[in-house]
């Protein structure tokens, strides 16, 4: 009998405790609001979770890979996209190391298509910190959230949903 009550108690205790705290929390929150109405902002949890998005660096690395589509399959054209800017830590070495892999003209045209004209049309011969900063911004901080990427050659539409591009091919496109 005694055991039963103890086990019940241990079971109930956390629930009672939790609800007590919740009531307390709610009361104090309301009280605070009465006293300081400017505090009425939604509570932050885990900080802000950024939505996933396609960065231009990714766009610069993806080509249409459908069967037989080997020419004019890059860069993919953006369609009905919505963009957002989001800050990312700057690492000069990373950008400098990545520079040889970039298709510069494609990057500039993609950025301009999305309304960013910060990059010079021609890649400067002198790679200075200012240029790296600009590249960093275009490569890593411009994000495409929704929309699609379309192959300029075979017109395959690669949809971007929830920031994740779907690059799967259909049955007749693999080989």
């Amino acid at each position: 009998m005694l055991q039963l009550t103890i086990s019940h108690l241990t079971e109930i205790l956390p629930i009672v405790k939790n609800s007590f705290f919740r009531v307390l929390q709610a009361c104090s929150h309301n009280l605070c609001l009465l006293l300081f109405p400017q505090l009425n902002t939604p509570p932050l949890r885990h900080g802000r979770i950024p939505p996933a998005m396609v960065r231009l660096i990714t766009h610069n690395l993806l080509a249409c890979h459908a069967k037989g589509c080997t020419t004019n399959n890059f860069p993919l054209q953006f369609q009905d996209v919505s963009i957002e800017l989001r800050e990312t830590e700057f690492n000069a070495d990373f950008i400098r190391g990545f520079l040889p892999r970039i298709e510069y003209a494609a990057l500039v045209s993609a950025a301009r298509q999305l309304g960013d004209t910060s990059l010079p049309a021609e890649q400067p011969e002198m790679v200075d910190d200012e240029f790296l900063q600009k590249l960093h911004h275009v490569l890593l901080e411009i994000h495409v959230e929704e929309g699609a990427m379309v192959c300029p050659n075979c017109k395959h539409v690669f949809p971007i949903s929830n920031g994740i591009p779907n690059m799967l091919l259909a049955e007749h496109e693999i080989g």
Partner: protein
Amino acid sequence: MFTHYLFVFAQVHDEFRIPELESIAELHGFSIKFPDNPEDKKTARPFMVLGLESEEHAKVLSERCILVKYICEFYARGKTYEELHRENQLRANQWQKYAADTSFKFMVTAFNHTIPQWRQKDVVEGFSYMDFQGKIDMKNPEIILACFEEYRDKHGTTRAKDEGDGEFEEVWFGRLIEVGSARPLVKKFDVKKRVYYGNTSMEAEMSLLMANQTLASPGKLIYDPFTGTGSMAYTTAHFGAFVYGSDIDGRQMRGKVKPPGIIRAAAQYGIANRIMDLCTFDVTQNPWRCGGLFDAIVTDPPYGVRAGAKRLGRKNVRPTREGPPPVHAPRPDDQPYIPPTRPYELSELARDLVLLARYMLKPRGRLVFFLPTVTEEYKEVDVEAMLCEGMELVANSLQDFGSWGRRLITIRKTTTEEYPPPTFDPAHAVTENVASHVPAHKDFREKYFQGFKKADTEEADQDSEEQQ
């Protein structure tokens, strides 16, 4: 000039210990001198005396190696305390500088045993000949002297409290300089506390060990082609790298609510910005424009037990249809069209992965992946046969589950030559290098579900069943 340091390791994943040390040393460009005596290099014991060129290196290792618990400046070891004290006195030049007025405390502890308080005091008093005149400070001492007794594993035996006390195998002594600060990461990345995970998520400790094998660090770009729920993305990004993830099944990366699960979990760890992007595609039909992109490829390929590897295509090839390709009506969910997939056999996948890595990695980049193998059938040649020109084996560490195990394979790209992308053609999948031995990871799924029975015992089983 190497100085000796006493390392105390967590006695888990012992085959991963030395590769981890070597990786972190390589990442930071220094070397470790391992003991010459093979007996002292064995990882069955948690203690090891290693040579380092500077105390700074010990700090680096303790901050990054998941398996390091303590690092001490090594003074002495012995089968008995007499032996220990004799050796310690010979090294007086190392500790005498602390004798005059340095505040200190002693830490007396044991492996596989608990030393009773009264004897701890005896042990400390045994060191009285060191004649330390400084203040004893239990809270903030300037130096900590550490004494470890090492006992044999008494697991599974019943014994009285303190029984066998003092009957240690060996005793070790040094000045504690670093407490492993990477080990708590195992708790931080605990899958159970993660906001998004799946039934194939990699355990925290292993995904951290994998991240160390990739040499992840700020400014590097790392790729996981079977990213699933992103377990390795979080740990590699934690060490500063940018991470790409792709998977044939976008649902694994997304989960059910927005934003995608991997992004939510990455945000929990404060590294969402280092998830470069996620992408849905079949790695055998991948859209990467060029090779030589990544500093490392890290992955846990699905081997068919909880999740099977899939690639685009059909299991049974249908005759090709005449006429234009069919038009697929858009579906109500966010996946407009889901192409058919077929199983991807493991030995085929492993071989393709090495070829893909040779194409996609930068020179000296690393491929780190798990390969499940049947313990009885495994031969070293299984791994060697996967290698190709320009790719060299760095480490091969077994996590043993009994009848099967998985091996963490680390391969380095040694070539600076550019190779073509792999064809992913199953026709080449025959293990041409090993005519004599079928790799123990071939058809792993089938073997797993047959309980790893050998072909002949299976026949015997059938016979006995028939008799019944």
